[in-house]
């Protein structure tokens, strides 16, 4: 479906391609000014010695002290570990819920459109708004979660979900996964529409069970979309800020301190822009390596 080059005489083509570049200019300018330049600036800040909030007041010279602190202290590696825990803890339930819903909603029934729109609503909810409602639901004394679990006899005493180091990670994952699952649902719904129904008929004729139909017809049709949406979700949750920051600010202790939260706190709470920038570059490198490794693995398994 991709467009072929403009046909016709050579003169036409070159005038056309000038027009093509002209249309692209605003996007290029935006990217250069607000992505490339900030990246370079982040690199410079990360190499500027000392602790500063305004680089104008920083001591002159270059130094690797911030990187030394990132690489040789337990803190940044702990942040990284918790970031991965948070990312996969959020993606796994969102993926399964998204897939389950897409399959459930596949066959038409009366009112399906409305129900589908309703179930996808969390996607439109601002992250911090989702955080506040989960903060309320997880409240130790008034929260509905404790109330329901106590009522069902699943809990003997109320839990302070966001203050207990054993439950806090799950409690920040809950709103993250809740906002994330509709993305998976939408992508899987779109991908399911593209699978020809004849394939199922053929499979049924061959006597394939529901499970076998899923394995041999549905899943092959979803695989590529599943990979891409998981990748997008990985990058999104890896930099996610809107849930942990309002809920715990990384606490209690450092139990929910991810790289994204630490970068912000180091910069704007401890006025240590240089260290924050070094942490940022560290997280960029980690994300890039993770994407490259999985892309390669994915390519190899489809080839």
């Amino acid at each position, binding site marked *: 479906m991709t467009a072929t080059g403009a046909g016709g005489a050579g003169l036409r083509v070159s005038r056309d391609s000038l027009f093509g570049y002209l249309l692209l200019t605003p996007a290029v300018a935006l990217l250069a000014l607000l992505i490339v330049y900030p990246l370079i600036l982040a690199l410079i800040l990360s190499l500027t010695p000392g602790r500063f909030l305004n680089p104008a007041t920083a001591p002159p010279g270059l130094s690797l002290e911030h990187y030394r602190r990132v690489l040789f202290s337990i803190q940044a590696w702990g942040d990284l570990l918790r970031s991965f825990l948070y990312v996969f803890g959020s993606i796994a339930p969102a993926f399964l819920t998204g897939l389950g819903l897409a399959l459930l909603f596949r066959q038409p029934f009366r009112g399906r459109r409305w129900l589908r*729109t309703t179930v996808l609503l969390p996607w439109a909810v601002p992250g911090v708004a989702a955080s506040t409602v989960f903060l309320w639901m997880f409240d130790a004394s008034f929260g509905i979660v404790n109330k329901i679990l106590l009522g069902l006899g699943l809990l003997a005493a109320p839990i302070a979900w966001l203050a207990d180091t054993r439950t806090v990670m799950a409690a920040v994952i809950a709103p993250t996964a809740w906002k994330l699952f509709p993305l998976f649902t939408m992508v899987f719904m779109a991908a399911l529409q593209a699978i020809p129904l004849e394939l199922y008929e053929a499979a049924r004729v061959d006597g394939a069970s529901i499970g076998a139909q899923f394995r041999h017809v549905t899943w092959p049709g979803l695989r590529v979309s599943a990979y891409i949406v998981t990748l997008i979700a990985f990058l999104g949750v890896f930099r996610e800020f809107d849930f942990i920051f309002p809920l715990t600010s990384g606490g209690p202790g450092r139990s929910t301190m991810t790289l994204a939260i630490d970068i912000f706190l180091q910069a704007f709470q401890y006025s240590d822009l240089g260290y924050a920038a070094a942490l940022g570059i560290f997280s960029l490198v980690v994300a890039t390596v993770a994407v490259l490794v999985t892309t390669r693995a994915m390519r190899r398994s489809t080839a």
Partner: protein
Amino acid sequence: MKLKSRSTVKGLRIAACVGVTVALVFPLYWMLVTAVRPTRDLLTMDLSIIPSTITLDGFAALFKYNPVTSWLRVSTVLSLGSASISLLISIFAGYSLSRFTGRGHQVMGLALLLSRMLPGSLLVVPFYVIFLRLGLIDNVLSVVLVDTVFIVPFATWLLKGFFDGIPRELEEAAWVDGAGRIRALTSVILPLSAPGIAAAATYSTIFGWGDFLFARTLLTTDRNWPVTVGIVSFIGDNGTDWNSIMGMGLIAVLPMMVLFILAERHLIAGLTAGGVKG
């Protein structure tokens, strides 16, 4: 007999759809119910699923004691401002990437794709320094620009997907009729890709409206905050007033819910066409 069991299965599936949907939207319902409950219910821990009395007093107090109108204005400027700028840029760029496939275009397409990988949490540090130097801290324009940067790569690829699906012959027919390239774009391509533009516009607006990180970093005075920063400022305030927080949450959620309901059909089509395929 066979028919009956098939209709039972269908009934069970519909019941499952309804059940899962109710469970998953429960947090939104709980937000609504808490916002319209009288404060005394919260004090006496009367937390029945259906409130005995419904009142809008909470909202009146919200508007009275907080600059909620300013917050709503800032959120509107932010989301519509970044959405319109990024749509303009992305329509041009997406069309260009769809119709021109030279080396330069391939590189640019890849650069746009890669820029989606950048963590916003990394860029927040240099952004702060840049806008500090420009004197744009506490100026909504800074957040509009930053949000635009994050919207353009996604919107461009989404729109490129839509433009790819429109046959070139339609444009060429317009050229033959004497229309220029720009005219062909505005009068042939744009009307045909209305669903894609609707999807991109919805995505952009929801992104700008929901932004918290950049607004929290770049806007310092409370009157200049959007609703997202406003809500979070309530947390921990004198014993956490749930009535107000949920009211504020509802104010932040409702406009986006309406927008989503209106545009949902196009969003799925948009994801099919380009959003994830790219």
